[in-house]
């Protein structure tokens, strides 16, 4: 479903992604772990070209995009086949919950308003927010806002969902409801790439876990392999340090 080949990203002189190769199958849930600054967010953002990779190939659902010759239509296509959930939710503050979810359907997919509304309400029911349709983001808790963020990403039925630390801005008592929603979305068979610091969650939800360090994928494997029998020294250190902090 997703295929990254030798993806590099430079910010000015700084080499942030140093040749990433990654394959994600349809329906697979892959978590990306790694220390702060290792390039996890940048990797996710290169997939939908919120950051343009300096070079390399991004392929989603069969459409191959070479970063060095990417056209507008390629970027549109990548954005249409991905949905993103942000650490800071990034809801449209001037829109209600319902409008936040509908906007993609009406203005990007050009679906008729009544139909878009119906679909949006169904999605909001799935994330448990059907009773908050007319609230503005400012009237919601962080957990509720993030569930709207998930609903907004789901609305366009993307082939791939990208989550960038979806629970890192939340008060601890709100983390659970968002994780439960993400798990539900995973159980529905969605293809997902999740950057997270919630190790237990990553372990429980993922088909595969990727460990990044300094712009490279250092190790990857099933949660069982990576958490119980890490091969690489850096992964061991990271996991033991993270576990101590838990």
């Amino acid at each position: 479903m997703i295929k990254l080949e030798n993806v590099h990203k430079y910010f000015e002189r700084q080499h942030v992604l140093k040749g990433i190769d990654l394959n994600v199958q349809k329906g697979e849930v892959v978590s990306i772990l790694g220390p702060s600054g290792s390039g996890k967010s940048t990797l996710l953002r290169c997939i939908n070209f919120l950051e343009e990779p300096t070079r390399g190939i991004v392929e989603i659902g069969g459409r191959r995009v070479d970063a060095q010759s990417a056209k507008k239509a390629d970027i549109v296509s990548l954005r249409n086949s991905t949905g993103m959930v942000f650490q800071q939710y990034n809801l449209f503050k001037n829109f209600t919950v319902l409008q936040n979810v509908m906007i993609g359907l009406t203005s990007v997919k050009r679906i008729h308003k009544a139909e878009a509304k119906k679909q949006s309400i169904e999605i909001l029911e799935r994330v448990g927010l059907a009773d908050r349709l007319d609230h503005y983001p400012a009237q919601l808790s962080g957990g509720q806002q993030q569930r709207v963020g998930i609903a907004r990403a789901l609305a366009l039925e993307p082939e791939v969902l990208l989550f960038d630390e979806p629970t890192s801005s939340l008060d601890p008592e709100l983390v659970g409801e968002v994780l439960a929603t993400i798990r539900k979305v995973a159980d529905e068979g969605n293809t997902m790439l999740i950057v997270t610091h919630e190790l237990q969650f990553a372990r429980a939800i993922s088909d595969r876990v990727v460990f990044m360090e300094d712009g490279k994928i250092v190790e990857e494997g099933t949660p069982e392999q990576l958490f119980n029998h890490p091969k690489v020294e850096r992964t061991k250190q990271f996991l033991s340090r993270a576990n101590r902090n838990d």
Partner: protein
Amino acid sequence: MENLLDINFLIDSFPAIISRLPVTIGIAVGSLILSLFIGVATALIKIYRVPVLRVISAIYVSFIRGTPLLVQIYLVFYGIPKIIYYMQIEYGWLQSADVNSIPPEVYALLAFSVNLGAYLSETIRSAIESVDRGQFEASKSIGMTPAQMMLKVIFPQALATAIPNLGNMFISTIKDTSLVFIIGVIDIMGEAKILGSRGLAFFEVYIAVSIVYWILCIAVERLLVKVEKRARRYERGIA
């Protein structure tokens, strides 16, 4: 006994002055609308660092801020007809325009739009930049075009933020329109001048006209408070 004021004359002058309110309001509102387009365009040029246009718009803003409004009004009033005439003679352009039939209100509208646009530019730019980056990114991530993003997400929020500043500038503009009589527009000020010289009662008519400006500005301020409340309703914690 000598009267300080001819009260009757003062009161009698109101209907005529008020009958010119549409001119004053028309120029103020019309130039507000036009200047919003100029302000948004120059703000976007600056934000997106558009080559060439960026320099032109910087010079424009600096020129307007650095020269008196009165001079700008004269420049438009005397300059535009000359330019049109020149183009007709030299290039055969704009043949259908009859320079002499352009009413002075049009020049006033142009001058005020160009003036206000330069002042709005900076306010609008900072209002657009005050919308957090995350919402720009979210719009892109769901595949909205830049135009959709700006019109539906960014501008409404930027406008809400900018309303207090826009409002102050609009009120200044209302008061500045009192200059337009110099190019022959008969607004409320122009009317006051005419009445004053007819009855040789300038003090009276200027008191009358100042009261009209004052009430107008108070009304606009009230209206702005309502508009702002409405525009920012999404920021508050109630539905």
